[in-house]
């Protein structure tokens, strides 16, 4: 060990201030595969507790699906464990090409290139496509990986009020002198589960000759009638210039992401996107399993249909029970509590009842917007949903918030 006590004290001080702010993130040990039912060791050292998982991005319930696990085993047997290379040296197998083609067809684009994660895809794509004479115009609630990706790009940065199309149009007018403009949005915003107005965005993109880029990580596989994503849901399938998305949520949940879209942009990413050029190939085991996932969800919409029905059921029952839930259709269901401590206390009590859901507060969400975020999965059966609704209702009664709206909850608990 080399560094001095001065550095050690500084870093420890940083950690202490994170603890003091109440934002220290603890990891809970799960001693089972990812599923609706999981065994969790929490706090560390406790005997494992069986809980229902309502906080995974396992939207289609494919994370531990037997056919996906089998395909992963086959990938391991036939194509090995690692490639010990980046893609362009000796890291591209036939199955990588197969997956890129399957994703292209599924997403309705011209071409696709895989990245180690969607974070990497977002870190790479802007710098490839735009330069200092261009403008990036982003929704103010885009994912942190997009914000970081934009910081790595020399283009001028603009942003517009969340989902406010008039404000977006103002920014498009303001940047008329730029060479290229890119409108940048999440397809689905992860904290509220609200859906971007992609039909309007495409319309504005055409009107002002802008490139449209969407991160569809919380939509690919299940949003829209055949699960293609937000563009299908909004009636603009085949019209998005750049889609970034992940294999780490609905599509099996392991890891990996991609840039999918116009062929020349994808080809340029292969030549110039630094996270692509300098990261190892996504391992064969993940590629083989993801190919199976694409096959499964291309053949039938059963899983996304079940997810849609379960989401509707849960939202209706929870709203009828008296919880304050913004209207929506997405399996991300924000249970609004406004007060950070209330959100933490209720999440803790829910865990005691065998329901694992997470409380979110500032700075993850805006001040005064604390909530418990519930995520529904096709792996949930009706009895799982009913158990969660009963537990929420019991805890909601304990804190006397049922039937109360924002103002009343804030009057009781403060911001």
């Amino acid at each position, binding site marked *: 060990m080399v560094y001095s006590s001065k550095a050690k004290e500084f870093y420890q001080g940083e950690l202490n201030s994170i603890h003091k702010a109440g934002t220290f993130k603890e990891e809970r040990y799960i001693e089972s595969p990812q599923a609706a039912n999981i065994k969790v060791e929490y706090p560390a050292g406790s005997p494992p507790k069986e809980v229902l998982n309502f906080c995974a991005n396992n939207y289609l319930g494919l994370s531990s699906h037997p056919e996906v696990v089998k395909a992963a085993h086959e990938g391991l047997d036939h194509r090995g464990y690692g490639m010990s290379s980046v893609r362009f040296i000796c890291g591209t197998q036939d199955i990588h090409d197969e997956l890129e083609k399957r994703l292209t067809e599924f997403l309705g684009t011209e071409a696709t290139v895989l990245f180690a994660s969607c974070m990497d895809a977002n870190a790479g794509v802007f710098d490839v496509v735009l330069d200092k004479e261009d403008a990036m115009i982003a929704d103010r609630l885009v994912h942190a990986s997009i914000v970081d990706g934009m910081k790595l790009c020399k283009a001028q940065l603009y942003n517009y009020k969340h989902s406010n199309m008039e404000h977006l149009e103002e920014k498009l007018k303001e940047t008329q002198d730029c060479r290229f403009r890119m409108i940048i949005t999440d397809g689905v915003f992860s904290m509220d589960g609200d859906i971007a107005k992609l039909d309007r965005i495409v319309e504005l993109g055409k009107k002002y000759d802008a490139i449209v880029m969407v991160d569809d990580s919380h939509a690919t596989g299940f949003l829209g009638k055949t699960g293609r994503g937000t563009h299908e849901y909004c009636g603009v399938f085949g019209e998005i210039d750049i889609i970034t998305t992940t294999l780490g949520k609905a599509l099996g949940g392991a890891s990996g992401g991609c840039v999918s879209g116009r062929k020349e942009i994808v080809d340029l990413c292969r030549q110039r996107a630094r996270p692509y050029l300098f990261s190892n190939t996504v391992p064969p085991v993940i590629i083989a399993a993801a190919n199976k996932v694409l096959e499964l969800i291309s053949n039938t919409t059963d899983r996304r249909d079940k997810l849609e029905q379960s989401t509707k059921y849960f939202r209706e029952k929870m709203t009828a029970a008296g919880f304050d839930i913004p209207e929506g259709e997405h399996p991300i269901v924000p249970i609004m509590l406004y007060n950070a401590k209330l959100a933490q206390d209720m999440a803790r009590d829910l865990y005691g009842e065998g329901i694992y859901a997470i409380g979110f507060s500032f700075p993850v969400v805006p001040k*005064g917007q604390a909530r418990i975020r519930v995520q529904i999965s096709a792996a949930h059966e009706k009895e799982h949903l009913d158990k969660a609704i009963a537990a929420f209702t019991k805890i909601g009664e304990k804190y006397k918030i049922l039937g109360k709206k924002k103002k009343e909850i804030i009057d009781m608990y403060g911001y």
Partner: protein
Amino acid sequence: MSEDLKQLLIDYVKREYLEEDSEEEIDESTPLISSGIVDSFSMVSLKTFVEKKFNIKIPDEKATTEAFDSVNNIIKLLKEFNVS
């Protein structure tokens, strides 16, 4: 302090960051970033606005969240660029 400059900045903050139906009041000392009205990502609009308006370039080391945390702070920052 120039009243015109103060009003210009208050008007911009209201238009750029508040929803039309917002009842929030903004004056020259209202905390913008530390209060959560403007987050660090959205702050870029404010910086671009003053740079374009007054034809200046604020270097990153001066464009801190503290420097943009209120209209008063922004006016103080602009003085360094001979804008008043």
